[in-house]
């Protein structure tokens, strides 16, 4: 008995929502980044689900591109976080206001 598509999509939506909550609630920039990764993963799950249930390859290809873009994003984001950390700033996204000055 196959699993219906909407259960996969519900799981994807639940994980995405958890990631969005974490993005707004957490204050450590590294953890905020991890929550973004969580949301991207949830979207990848939705892509793969629709690809499977519509007998199409487009979703898989786009999920692959999303994985690539996420890797690039992590590289630049972590470089910025390390720079902020080395500048001796507090690791709290509520306190970071370097761009304001």
């Amino acid at each position, binding site marked *: 008995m196959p699993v219906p598509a909407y259960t996969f999509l519900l799981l994807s939506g639940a994980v995405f929502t*958890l990631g969005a909550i974490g993005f707004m609630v957490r204050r450590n920039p590294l953890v905020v980044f991890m929550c973004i990764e969580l949301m991207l993963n949830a979207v990848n799950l939705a892509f793969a689900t629709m690809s499977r249930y519509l007998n199409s390859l487009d979703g898989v290809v786009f999920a692959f591109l999303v994985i690539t873009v996420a890797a690039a994003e992590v*590289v630049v984001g972590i*470089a910025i976080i390390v*720079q902020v950390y080395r500048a001796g700033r507090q690791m709290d996204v509520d306190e970071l206001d370097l761009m304001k000055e």
Partner: protein
Amino acid sequence: MVIGFAIVAAWELVTAIGVVAFRRPMYNALSLVANMLGLAVLFLMLNAQFLFAAQIIVYAGAVMVLFVFIIALMNPQADISFRPRGTEWIYGVVFGVIFAALLGTLLFNHGLTGRLGAFTPEVIAAAGNVQTIGIALYTRFLFPVEVTSVLLLVAAVGAVYLAMRRIR
């Protein structure tokens, strides 16, 4: 299949909550590794073997190793050490509930429609999963692939520039 999906789905939800709820960044990172491995299993259930391999290698292999190294090197303090905050987290939870309700109603009221494509599991199995995706990537999706490769180059150059920059 259904029982396996239920187990992996519960695993996904628990580890996702772990990413959001643990106080120490290292535990968050390890929860995220567990979450990504579960997601790879889901890709396998969805007959996307290529995505399964890419997920394991790129996410669980490369991205999370980067996260864990940075956490181990920087040793950032847990959120406990930040000054206590007000009631902002309530807004986050309220937003989450509203967002989940919106997603759920959208899913159930509109159903899932779409034109079926030609790539049934039998067709993919006949040609091979990686072969089919490779042909799609380098014919129909050649331009997105090239743009993504340029993005990767730009990200690498940007990371090197950020790492070399002198800090005031």
